[in-house]
């Protein structure tokens, strides 16, 4: 016997209405807080809007200005460079850490807990902690380097070091990727490892030929998420460097925020936000396309 919920495959108006009613909290919220702002944002991106006066339609002028804006260019360059460093560094680190944690070594549980913990720290607090660690005067890193006789770079005060320093800080919250990879590794059949061992594969070879292909879907999922997140870099540079020195850590999200809420250029900010969304989308598609080619390559 099928329950009432299945009585007619849910096609009757009554059943559809009931379903919509139950889904309505999220549907209404989606309409108010996502769909309407998205439409408004698209409209504002075609206007000159200072928040004090009514928006004035200007066509694609904002988009044309964006293409020539040196600050936006620097911000885009920095954001892409940060994403490249953060995604590559974070993926490499978590692909080494996760298998290490899954070897059943002494203390694995504790280390796993410690590695995950920083992902829960408030980003604003993490920014304060690393501002202190990177402090060139009496910050722990500078003192540590001086103690071993090395000279400490001015991590956040030197335009060559500032962005890599933020990317290095980003590695601290790699724990969520590690957890996903750990779960995926547990799903790789033991027999594959045993077969590889019989074939004389060493630990590194097993890692490369068994573990990595075995968890490829999880890697792809995480790389996509890491790309999306790293392209939004905001709190750390805003709090720690204000985008400096010399625009070297100015990011796209910061430009959106500053234009909308500090310079009073809402239309321009909305246009930039759409460009940011398109860049994110394009890079996500690129990653998926590369992944497909990699799968074909490995299989063939």
């Amino acid at each position, binding site marked *: 016997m099928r329950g009432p919920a299945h009585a007619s495959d849910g096609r009757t108006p009554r059943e559809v209405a009931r379903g*919509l009613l139950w889904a309505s909290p*999220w*549907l209404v919220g989606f309409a108010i807080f996502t769909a309407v702002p998205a439409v408004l*944002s698209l409209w504002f991106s075609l206007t000159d809007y200072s928040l004090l006066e009514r928006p004035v339609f200007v066509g694609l002028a904002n988009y044309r200005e964006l293409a020539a804006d040196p600050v936006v260019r620097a911000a885009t360059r920095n954001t892409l460079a940060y994403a490249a460093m953060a995604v590559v560094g974070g993926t490499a680190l978590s692909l080494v850490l996760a298998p290490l944690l899954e070897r059943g070594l002494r203390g694995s549980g504790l280390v796993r807990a410690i590695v995950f913990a920083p992902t829960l720290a408030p980003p604003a607090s993490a920014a304060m902690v690393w501002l202190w660690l990177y402090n060139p005067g009496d910050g722990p890193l500078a003192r540590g380097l001086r103690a071993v006789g090395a000279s400490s770079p001015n991590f956040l005060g030197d335009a060559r070091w500032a962005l890599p320093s933020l990317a290095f800080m980003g590695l601290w919250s790699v724990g969520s990727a590690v957890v996903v990879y750990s779960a995926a590794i547990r799903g790789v059949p033991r027999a594959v490892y045993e077969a590889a061992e019989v074939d004389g594969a060493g630990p590194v070879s097993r890692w490369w030929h068994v573990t990595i292909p075995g968890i490829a879907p999880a890697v792809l999922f995480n790389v996509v998420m890491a790309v999306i997140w790293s392209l939004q870099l905001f709190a750390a540079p805003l709090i720690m460097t204000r985008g400096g020195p010399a625009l070297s850590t100015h990011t796209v999200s910061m430009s959106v925020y500053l234009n909308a*809420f500090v310079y009073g250029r809402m239309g321009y*900010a909305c246009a930039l936000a759409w460009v*940011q*969304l398109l860049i994110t989308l394009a890079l996500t598609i690129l990653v998926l396309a590369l992944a497909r080619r990699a799968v074909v390559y490995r299989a063939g």
Partner: protein
Amino acid sequence: MPRDRRDNTGGRGAWPTLVLWLCGAAFALPLVWMVAGSVRPAPGSSAGVLGRAAENYAAVWADPTANFPRYLRNSLLIAGASTLGMVAASAVTAFGLSRLCWRGRDAVFLVLLATLMIPGPVLVAPQYLLMRELGLIGTLAPLWLPAWFGGAFSVFLLRQFFLTIPRDLDEAARLDGCSTFGVFWRVVLPLSKPALASAALFQVVASWNDFLGPLVFLNHRELYTLPLGLQQYQSQHGGTPWNLVMAATTLTVLPVMAIYALTRRWFVEGSGAEGLKE
């Protein structure tokens, strides 16, 4: 803990263990330095470590330029109100998307999944205008009201859990005269306590940690939350008092870490790892 796991052939030796422990230490170090920084002596102080800790933390609490108790109150209010609404609204929506059968359900679920991919900052500017239209700027509402319509991540988490509850239970309850709401309230919710707890924990942490939302929506200091208020301790009259900044930072990190320490399993099992199973 089973000692014998996957990738463990002959590599159980001292070296991998040492590397593992060093990694653990490296990840712990920033937090250790944070706490160590919070007990550095204030200029002119000659107290011992515990005395200095007491001095610094008391100074943070009573600092005249910042208002720590107020920020704490705001953070707690927002976390409480948003979590309550988030769990309630997401549970209702997730029930509609998992245990009822209706045309259009899968389309709604796909849209919901797609919104998970939209970066938050992209929409924050028009959302601010919306909140201003609604007259909510100048209150804490912009930070908890949207949660009362549920969130894609919580709905997803709860839906996946609801799908694992056997359908026979619904049907038995209906035969006993339960309405749809009765099935939701008396059957599904009581069996879903772990998932509801996970959703609540994620929302508490997300709300506590939020920086962009408060930065955009809160326009005066009485409304500031802790992550925003933290910035007030930086560079007052010249040099930054790092001992106070680190003490304040420690106080904002501590609650999340305490929750994590007490509920580790829910966090690690709920985070992402579950999202891959479908």
